[in-house]
């Protein structure tokens, strides 16, 4: 990072959000905020401890990678967090909280007055208390009922009905009838019932909005990463920048070192390596030479190359994947949530029940007034408080428990889908295997110190991996002078007069081979990267099997390596899978009636993540992977997968129990209401009782993820 000029007055600052692992105490907050504040170019850093995120305001010149490195230097693992919660969802939650507060205030006060009436206040006092209740309840209903009224009105205008229609009708009727009772000095006013109903319903609605899908469009994030133009070479040697759409196949494009490639093509001149992490999720660079294909969206790392365009704009592989993802997401949106399925049955039943009650009482000669009162009491008693709370409370409690276990649930519906899973497909990279780690056992302490000093001077992915491993082992870097990076070759430096080079074998030691550390007067030491299965991958697979779930590996890597890994874990494995192949596998399985959970991290998993019934990605995944997946797990432990599935299944059971409780309560209370025995007191007791029962049952989920 070069010295950055102090921010000019009025210059726009960028804001970045990072999810940070390892925040535990007040000291961590101070360390992170002060540490980041000292980084040149950072104007302000603010930690949100509850969400384990840090918001950094910085100059646009600082990119996410630089900030991630800065946070890593302070001792925390950070992942750029794409703010997926749109402003609209946030505003909705907030307005629901305010409506909830008003309804709660009104319910408490009206209930106080009602207690006095129930305990036998005389006529004059009762009339006054009824008027007071009306004074409090009517504005509260008008303010807090808006979410329901608005939604019911939208549904009715389109000629449909939803859960909010019976709620709105019930609220309006109750308020109207109670007002009439108050004006005529009647005995029963249901203001207390109406506001309490509103309060419980808003609790359910608020919890639901907390669990609403926060998934941003993964496709948009993907396309944003592909450069919009490229440097095109003319026949006469001129070069001009052209928009990606205007580049035709066959044109020659020059890509500088460190630049993101804008088109698909074939290398015709130069040799380099590319970082394909956007597409594959693997950060290891891949060497390319003349004749090798390159993809748009990947980064050219070492040296400038010239490529002949084979596809550009909408024809590139990345654009293809984006289209696949768009289509894949549609199948998932057909899923109907449990609460909505219940609502479809519910509204007609309640309406006809109330109408029948009214008709029955009226025909048997009870008079209009009394018939309406009884019908209203049926509407109140059947109002779906407990049903409205049953699903969201369970989901909120379980996502809190999972969050503490390092699993982030992005969407409540995802938990419902996750409970139905019977097949798991694992992408190999990053999810089953540990990160590739350098083998450094053959190095002595001095060599390690030198290697760290060299490796941390470069931003090459391999160097960064080596530096990370060494720092974690507690190695202190050697004091070196003249440390310089030779692009495309490696890093060199001088340590106590000894020249050391870390990089390509041919450059560092003049011998063929991979990556080596060469020091004067010693034979070069090869630095190899190996990939091993996570220790707990086997445990995770065993647990999945005991839950009756099939697991298998689908990977884009070489078949041999994938099969070896599959054998080690005792599951079937398929290699060399293209994004379309993975998608096809999922579609075949789902076509057979199976429910698939896809666990993957790369862009090449994007379509599969979108098409599967449910999907999970590690926090280290590409943006696209994280945005498309339903659940994100921190750390790279595969055991999160069975934990999440078990929690989802448990949640489904609790939700079913809650429904049973709510319906059972209705079966008891409805006959009483139809028979005209329900007074405001009984309605209030029944309503709060069933809601408390449902909440208490859901709280049992709190211990689930331990």
């Amino acid at each position, binding site marked *: 990072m070069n010295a950055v000029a102090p921010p000019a007055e009025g210059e726009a600052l960028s804001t970045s959000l990072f999810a940070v692992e390892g925040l535990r105490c007040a000291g961590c907050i*101070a360390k992170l905020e002060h540490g980041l504040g000292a980084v040149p170019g950072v104007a302000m850093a603010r930690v*949100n401890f509850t969400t384990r995120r840090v918001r950094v305001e910085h100059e646009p010149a600082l990119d996410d990678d630089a900030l991630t490195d800065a946070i890593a230097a302070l001792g925390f693992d950070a992942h750029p967090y794409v703010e997926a919660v749109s402003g609209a969802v946030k505003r909705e939650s907030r307005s629901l909280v*305010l409506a909830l*507060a008003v309804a709660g205030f009104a319910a*408490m006060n009206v209930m106080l007055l009602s207690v006095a009436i129930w305990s036998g206040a005389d006529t004059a006092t009762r009339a006054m208390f009824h008027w007071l209740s009306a004074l409090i309840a009517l504005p509260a209903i008008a303010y807090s009922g808006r979410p329901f009224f608005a939604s019911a009105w939208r549904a009715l205008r389109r000629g449909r009905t939803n859960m909010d229609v019976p709620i709105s009708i019930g609220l309006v009727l109750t308020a109207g009838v109670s007002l009439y009772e108050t004006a005529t000095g009647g005995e029963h006013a249901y203001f207390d019932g109406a506001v309490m109903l509103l309060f419980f319903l808003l609790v359910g609605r608020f919890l639901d909005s907390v669990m609403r899908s926060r998934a941003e469009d993964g496709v948009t994030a993907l396309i944003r990463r592909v450069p919009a133009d490229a440097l095109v070479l003319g026949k006469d040697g001129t070069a001009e920048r052209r928009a990606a759409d205007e580049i035709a196949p066959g044109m020659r494009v020059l890509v500088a070192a460190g630049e993101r490639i804008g088109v698909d093509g074939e290398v015709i001149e130069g040799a380099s390596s590319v970082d394909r992490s956007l597409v594959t999720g693997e950060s290891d660079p891949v060497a390319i030479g003349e004749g090798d294909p390159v993809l748009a969206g990947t980064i050219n790392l070492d040296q400038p190359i010239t490529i002949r365009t084979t596809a550009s704009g909408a024809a590139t592989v990345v654009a293809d994947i984006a289209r696949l993802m768009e289509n894949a997401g549609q199948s998932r949106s057909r899923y109907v949530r449990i609460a909505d399925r219940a609502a479809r049955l519910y509204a007609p039943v309640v309406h006809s029940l109330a109408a029948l009650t009214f008709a029955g009482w009226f025909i048997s000669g009870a008079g209009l007034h009394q018939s309406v009162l009884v019908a209203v009491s049926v509407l109140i008693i059947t109002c779906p408080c407990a049903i409205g709370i049953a699903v969201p409370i369970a989901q909120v409690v379980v996502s809190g428990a999972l969050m503490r276990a390092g699993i982030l649930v992005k969407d409540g519906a995802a938990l419902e889908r996750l409970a139905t899973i019977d097949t798991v497909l694992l992408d190999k990279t990053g999810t089953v295997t540990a990160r590739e780690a350098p083998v450094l056992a053959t190095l002595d302490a001095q060599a390690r110190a030198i290697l760290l000093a060299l490796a941390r001077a470069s931003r090459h992915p391999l160097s960064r991996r080596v530096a990370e491993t060494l720092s974690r082992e507690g190695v202190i870097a050697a004091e070196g002078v003249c440390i310089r990076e030779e692009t495309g070759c490696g890093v060199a430096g001088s340590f106590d007069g000894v020249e050391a080079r870390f990089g390509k074998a041919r450059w560092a030691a003049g011998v063929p081979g991979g990556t080596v550390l060469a020091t004067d007067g010693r034979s070069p030491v090869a630095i190899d990267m190996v990939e091993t299965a996570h220790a707990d991958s086997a445990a995770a697979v065993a647990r999945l099997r005991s839950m009756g779930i099939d697991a298998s590996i689908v990977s884009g890597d070489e078949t041999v390596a994938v099969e070896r890994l599959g054998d080690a874990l005792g599951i079937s494995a398929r290699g060399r899978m293209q994004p379309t192949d993975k998608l096809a596998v999922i579609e075949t399985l789902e076509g057979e009636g199976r429910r698939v959970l896809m666990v993957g991290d790369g862009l090449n998993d994007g379509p599969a993540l979108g098409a599967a019934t449910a999907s999970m990605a590690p926090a280290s995944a590409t943006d696209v992977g994280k945005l498309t997946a339903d659940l994100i797990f921190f750390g790279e432990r595969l055991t999160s997968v069975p934990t999440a599935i078990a929690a989802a299944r448990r949640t489904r059971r609790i939700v079913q129990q809650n429904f049973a409780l709510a319906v059972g309560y209705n079966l008891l209370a409805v006959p009483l209401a139809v028979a005209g025995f329900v007074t405001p007191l009984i309605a209030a007791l029944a309503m709060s009782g069933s809601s408390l029962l449902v909440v208490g049952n859901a709280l049992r989920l709190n211990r689930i993820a331990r």
Partner: protein
Amino acid sequence: MNGLVILIPVALLLGLGGLGAFFWATRDGQFEDLDGAAMRILNDEDPGTKRED
């Protein structure tokens, strides 16, 4: 009975005051980082940066 004429409006006003305070607190972002606020009191030299909202 006379007491009620004073007590009920007083009770309602107090309640409304609480409600108003809650409205202010929500709009002001007081509930954005509940756990962090409990931790920050332990930091001596919190630079008093502006709260995120």
